[in-house]
């Protein structure tokens, strides 16, 4: 295909499904998971509690739970539900699983630092992400069952998960970063085409939280790397 041919395509040409089908993915996974997503809610609230304890073990446990959230939302939502209607979503799903494995590896190989952090700011941003972002899928669909929870919906998981940048050491931080950026760009383009304007806030929030993750991370001089 020539360059002119490629230029004749628009973003819409690559999206083979409509907003109704997409928003029902949230409803379907919530219906199928019930009541296990309540556990995801408890975990989402528990993570900042663990981080605030300023203990190495608690912080590792928090990052370990984030790792689990990446894996579950990637394999569950993206591979299992979204992949059948959109093959790039399945690829992202496996990338989410790899991202989860990466965080798990960081936990077990000293990649989670124990330097002092601005815990209050981190906790506020975390709670904003896991408590506010889930409602946007609901706002676009008009159905409360579409709530996009941390650990279930990839958008909320990636947004909150961006704050792990503040918890891992420098090398792990840079390895962890690319998927956050790629996913934000992909989902922003997708949500733009689907005209799900509320949900479009999520990838924007993810990029802002990436910045916050770096801002809250220990200065280079303090980093064990």
């Amino acid at each position: 295909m020539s360059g002119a041919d490629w230029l004749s395509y628009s973003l819409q040409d690559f999206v083979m499904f409509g907003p109704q089908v997409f928003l029902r993915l949230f409803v379907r996974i919530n219906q199928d998971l019930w009541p296990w997503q309540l556990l995801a809610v408890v975990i989402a609230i528990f993570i900042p509690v663990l981080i605030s304890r300023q203990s190495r073990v608690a912080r590792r446990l928090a990052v370990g739970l984030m790792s689990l959230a990446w894996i579950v939302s990637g394999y569950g939502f993206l591979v299992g539900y979204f992949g059948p209607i959109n093959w790039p979503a399945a690829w992202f799903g496996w990338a989410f699983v790899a991202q989860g494995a990466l965080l798990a590896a960081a936990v077990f190989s000293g990649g989670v630092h124990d330097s002092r952090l601005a815990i209050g700011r981190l906790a506020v941003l975390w709670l904003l992400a896991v408590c506010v972002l889930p409602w946007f899928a609901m706002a676009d669909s008009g159905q409360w069952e579409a709530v996009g929870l941390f650990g279930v919906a990839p958008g909320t998981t990636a947004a909150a998960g961006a704050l792990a940048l503040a918890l891992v050491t420098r090398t792990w931080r840079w390895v962890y970063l690319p998927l956050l950026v790629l996913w934000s760009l992909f989902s922003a383009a997708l949500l733009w085409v689907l005209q799900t304007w509320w949900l479009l806030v999520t990838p924007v929030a993810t990029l802002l939280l990436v910045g916050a993750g770096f801002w809250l991370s220990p200065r280079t001089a303090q980093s064990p790397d």
Partner: protein
Amino acid sequence: MANQITRRKFLISSGLAGIALKAPMLFANTSGSTALSPIMRRIPGTDESIPAIGMGTWITFNVGGDEQLITQRTEVLKTFFELGGTVVDGSPMYGSAADVMGEALNALDGHDRIFAATKIWTGDESATRAEAARSSRRWGVDRFDLLQVHNLLGWQGHLETLKQMKANGEVRYIGITTSHGRRHREFAQIMEREPLDFVQLTYNVLDREVEDRLLPLAQERGIGVIVNRPFQGGSLFRRFQSEPLPDWAGEAGAGNWAEFFLKYIISHPAVTCAIPATSKVEHMKENMGAMYGALPDASQRQRMAGYVRSL
């Protein structure tokens, strides 16, 4: 605005009423001589005719494993069959649409009622048969009526295999597709020298480039024409549904915008079939309404295109 007319309002006020009036006559076909016949088009070079309105599956049938939506799309297909439709077009490119179509056909026991058309969409020119077989399994059909090379991707190799498959009776008709007005020059060159049964291209009341070269060439070469994007991917409704139909639309056989857009297309003498896609039963009824009643003549077609341009 007093005269604002939405697609849904049309359905309620006129489209459904029109279908309701037409349908009893249609279904009284066995006994009544006044039955309203569907508009059929002969496939060039054959004695076979197909209905002038078919169904596309782009976006609309890609619903994954959503049982609620699969049931709803099955209702759309059922309505299509009930109103006389047979031609259904898909592509492996459309995600889960082929699987959903297979489920819907199973639910309706519709395999014998369908003129099944799909595409070969792979850059691997040696994979034609494998892809056709994969699509057959997904649709649940023994063989396709029509296999088309999607957007000319790897067309040389695929077309050679498709010609062999047609000779072996593995497919009844073969063709090539394009959309959005892409690669028309190369498309015309292939039409000029290859033994095609069908071409599929984009044509609607706003995108009329094919009237200059491809449609006359199809007539000259005896190639059937399937028209995709008859509503420009839905944008024609978004742009014009709030506008009133012209007073003379009824004379051109159009009782609503769907009929207006579709009858403009199928009244072109080179066109065999238009394949609008929809996910809603009521829209399917509107679309199928275009397969009945009068068609605009050449001067009315000019008037239709001019009216839309003027809005």
